């Protein structure tokens, strides 16, 4: 089946098997390998991208359902494969605060963090928000809660928190 979508600013028109997940389309067909497959069941967050501006698990999305979608992966945040000198502020913060160890969960963490800060800015409350009607703040507790869909088995959470905290302050 034919779908058209935008991946990291590139227009893509592909025929896909109806069983193909968005993650497999990106990695196996389009050679966009920033999103990682850690569980294929929406349990680890390694495959997180920004889909139409919101963080999304690509392993739980079927490619055929994404016609017209705009997808930004961690690679796209940096301005593409050659974008090493043009890293997104969140990526620079992860580097600065050692927010990773093996790096496998990192592209998902970074996309999730960017999407999470946008949700905060939009006023979405979380499980730990003390007042569901007030504008939530980027406290450590809020960041930890909202980032808990992205597992890091190496245990780099200390650096991840520091990186996101810095980005949140910079964008506040």
């Amino acid at each position, binding site marked *: 089946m034919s779908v058209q979508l935008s991946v990291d600013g590139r227009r893509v028109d592909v025929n896909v098997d109806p069983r193909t997940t968005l993650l497999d389309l990106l990695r196996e067909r389009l050679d966009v390998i920033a999103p990682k497959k850690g569980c294929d069941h929406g349990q680890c967050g390694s495959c997180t991208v920004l889909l139409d501006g919101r963080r999304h698990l690509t392993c739980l999305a079927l490619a055929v359902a994404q016609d017209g979608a705009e997808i930004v992966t961690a690679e796209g945040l940096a301005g593409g494969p050659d974008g090493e000198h043009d890293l997104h502020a969140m990526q620079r913060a992860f580097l600065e605060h050692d927010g990773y160890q093996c790096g496998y969960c990192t592209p998902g963490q970074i996309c999730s963090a960017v999407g999470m800060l946008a949700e905060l800015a939009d006023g979405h409350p979380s499980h730990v928000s003390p007042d569901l009607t007030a504008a939530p703040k980027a406290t450590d507790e809020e960041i930890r809660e909202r980032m*808990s869909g992205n597992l890091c088995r190496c245990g780099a959470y200390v650096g991840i928190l520091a990186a996101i905290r810095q980005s949140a302050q910079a964008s506040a």
Partner: protein
Amino acid sequence: MEHREGALGKDALTLWLVQSTIARGRVLDVDAEAALAHPGVVSVLDHTNAPILGQGVDEPDLELMVLQSTEVRFRGQVVAAVLAESAEAAREGAALVRVSYAEQDAEVEFGPDTTLEIPDKVNPDYDATSDDGDVDAALAQAEVVVDQTYRTPYEHNNPLEPHATTALWDGERLRLVEASQGPYAVASSLAPLLGLDVADVVVTSPYVGGGFGSKGMAHAPAMTAALAAITAPRRPVRLAVTRQQMFALTGYRTRTVSHFRLGARPDGVLVAIDHDVVEQTSRWKEFAEQTATSTRTMYAAENRRTVHRLARLDVAVPSFMRAPGEMPGMFAHEVAMDELAVACGVDPIVLRERNEPTVDPETGKPFSRRRLVECLQRGAELFDWAERPDDARSRADGVWWVGTGVASSTYPAKVMPANQATVTSCEAGEYRVEVGAVDIGTGSRTAMKQIAADALGVDPSCVQLEMADSSIGPATVAGGSSGTASWGAAVVAAAQLFRADHGDSPDPGLQTTASAADIPAAEDHALHSFGAIFAEVRVHRWTGELRVPRLLGVFSAGRIVNPVLARSQFYGGLIMGLSSGLHEDSYRDPRFGHVVTQDLASYHVAAHADIGDVRAEWLDEEDFVVSPMGTRGLGEIGIVGTAAAIANAAFHATGVRVRSLPVTADSFVS
């Protein structure tokens, strides 16, 4: 395995594993008809058509003898594999394969009636038993006795990157891109079974997404990919093990039951330590977790005894998981020490100080460095230990009981022999340094470059480092906290010999290969790192929910080559320790022996919201008895003792003693 350059992946076929659904018996038939009829399926491998392995090999590793017989030894064993043009077709094909079995009775769990054996050795080559003095007599006369049983569950490593192999057979050589902690180890274990020279199996592991021991040896999927590649020459075969399959095929930590008896004087000075371990292995390949070995070295006592007993079961093969032995053994020992402190009315840190040995109790050798007491004291300072109330259940903050706990940590320092490195001079004062090291996320690429630059006396930018390739030559695994010291010692040896042979301004193209030099003093010393772990635990008065707002580790782990990398290892160990303390539990189905909690939604690991203020510090030191860089290794020590510190803090908060992991809410609501 992530890499764009030099990938074998173009035009690859996808391989999907079919696993047994019985624990023990024989495969009667593999019906592949429906699978082969599915569009895109190329072939189905089973025991009738797989290439033959292990010819002329005595006692081949049965874990790697994939598809070689009809025998089923555990539920989840590879009984067929489907090769297809796409992942979708391979997966669908695998679901269409029908396997019929003749089932036999299986024994998949151990209990009071299980036949136990004392193995010849425990991992990797420690004695299974030790016995000094007269433990029974000392315990009979001891004024204070702690006599309790401690349990740790089955645990799975679960690196975020699943195991994956890409294999290409060009008719003479097998090339594998493998998610591995030891490419040379993979090459040297697969090659003989395939009837190939080690040099004809080239394994590369350029980027690896964590391992924690599970990628420390070749497992069945890698061999399955190799077999499939041989049946499809010149086309790469890709196999990605699913998260669910990892729970059966890539190793795990055994459940352990530790019966501890501590005998002491009223002031807490130990007179007897008795540690009796019961654990399990698979019936057909032994891995005996060295659960009691740290007990032999930890504290002074005249009378000491340890024993490991193994149940041999029809289950998947256990293997290395971060600090095999020390992690479960020290959980038991350090909770027992906390119980002794309570029984004697002595502060837990003072108790440990009173039992500090002057030499290694096991061997009588002096320690190269033993700074446990300094770690405890520095940690006490950082953690405001002096303000801690003596009594349990004496501090509350709203609906939360609040407590703090401490535990000691230790891990042996090892420098593995059989590493070699090559230094070659290049143009413009640059050097190429080759060593079969691998970076699984620890930063060993950075550390090796630093060590090479140091040893050559040049700037790191002048070093081109080649690693993670079995064809570089013999190298040991990224495991046992031994990588930096072992590979680094070879790099230092090669650099020094290069300078001795070719001087400080060599012409380009000169080359020296060397192995690590022996350090004679190492033989005469006990080589261990030590640490102290502190935890604050809050337990909800009504729900029993546990939180760990503060976790601190202070370590004496030799020279720190790179503080950023070191801190990350300590944090990672502490957080995996917290994870084991609160969450991890591979629940085994008692009927079939497979893991029921076989994904990350049911096998819980620490998520970001579980983490509070985590801190790690280390004592400045160098240990040249262990390695020429003065390092001792630090990948594992952070996990050791952490779960005990949490259990001890939970006791201090609530007065409820939990002796089995994970420590969960149900223990605190009655």
